[in-house]
């Protein structure tokens, strides 16, 4: 059965939260709560709570990136020093630890930042094409709920949205 998208825009965040809660409670056939996407102009973790517990994995990228950065730097640098004609400088050991730690530290951060951003792009699914149902109002001041469901469920969605004072409901064109 084909699925269709529906986007509802709300002015009032509380109403949107209520709409989501109702959608969850309504247990509409042909609709999975995972198919609900909340679009919003600002970051508001307290609103997103209504969507349930959704894990974030960016920090794993951070950990790996930082460790890789640090390790790579240390071995690259000390390896380079050991193979640079074994040149003694200023009476210090050929592989001097304090300076190497300074650089390891810097590369630890650099690796961490770069891979975090990479992780962010992967986890957030960016860059992406915009979905067909998108309103510029979302980037202004309105909150949007994008749902995907069977054709049969559309009517139920609309009812709930309208009830919660949706300003506008956009519907994906049929196939």
């Amino acid at each position, binding site marked *: 059965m084909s699925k269709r998208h529906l986007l509802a825009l709300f002015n009032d965040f509380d109403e949107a939260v209520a709409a989501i809660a109702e959608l969850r409670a309504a247990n509409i056939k042909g609709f999975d709560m995972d198919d609900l996407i909340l679009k919003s102009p600002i970051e508001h973790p307290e609103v997103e709570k209504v969507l349930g517990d959704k894990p974030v994995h960016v920090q794993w990228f951070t950990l790996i990136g930082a460790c890789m950065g640090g390790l790579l730097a240390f*071995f690259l640098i*000390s*390896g*380079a*020093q*050991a*193979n*640079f*004609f*074994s*040149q*003694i*400088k*200023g*009476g*210090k*050991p*050929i*592989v001097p630890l304090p300076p190497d730690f300074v650089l390891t530290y810097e590369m630890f951060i650099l690796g961490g930042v770069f891979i975090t951003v990479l992780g962010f792009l992967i986890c957030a699914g960016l860059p992406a094409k915009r979905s067909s149902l998108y309103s510029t109002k979302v980037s202004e001041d309105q909150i949007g709920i994008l749902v995907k469901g069977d054709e049969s469920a559309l009517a139920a969605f609309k009812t709930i949205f309208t009830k919660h004072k949706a300003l506008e409901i956009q519907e994906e064109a049929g196939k």
Partner: protein
Amino acid sequence: MSITNLLENWSDFRQQHPSEDRPHREYKWAMSIDLDACTGCNACSVACYAENNLPVVGKEKFAHGHSHHWIRIERYWDNDGREFADQGAQFLPMLCQQCESAPCETVCPVGATNHTADGLNSQVYNRCVGSRYCNANCPYKARYFNWYDYPTTDNVWPEPMNQQLNPDVTVRGKGVMEKCTFCVQRLTVAKSNARSEGRSVLDGEVQTACQQVCPTGAISFGNLVDPSAKVGKQWKQQQVDLNKDKQAKDVTESAAKLRGYRILEELRTYPSVMYLEQLRESAI
């Protein structure tokens, strides 16, 4: 490969320098300068100009502190308000001290200055990017920077003066740091000759230009590793130890009669140049 090399020879790479347990193997070039013999005549400085292709910068640039005398004669007076400098002056030839633990080496961003196996503080002109950090960190200020392009734009050696240039020594272009090399071009030849004869360089076989010219023989130069070398004997007699930052003279009273000392030793640069104190007669 690098990592294997790193791990296998880890203790070698962690070795501090100078150290008693790992002395220089075949050569450790060192100098001693007898300030009682030095008359301040400047012959050494001119010899260095001739040997090492040092540019004559002229009055205006000299006034700006752009001079290039790898060995310079400093002249000190007694500054105790006496009416006349009646004990004469103290002359001191100052050149790169070829420190065993040279402050200039650690700070060079590109590794253009290094400690060689012979105990020299080498300067790789090709590698130098001209950050001048080495000079900033040299307590003796014995490093000289090419502030201008002396050979070309400054025309320091107008035809045919350029024919005098020593082909064994690079003519440095602008933006490069330079300093006394202990006449490394001469050392290289001597070592190469000795190697082809299956021996080490003998004492007196190689002289630096300044040493060679010095009319009073105030400068001794040689290989500290060689027990027969004059310079080594001098160091030993003066109880100046390459690897120490405090010598017997500074520590024990009975050694107060020794003349040997190294300049700014407290900075732990471990210089390879020992100076012998000037003497003055007290009967007059």
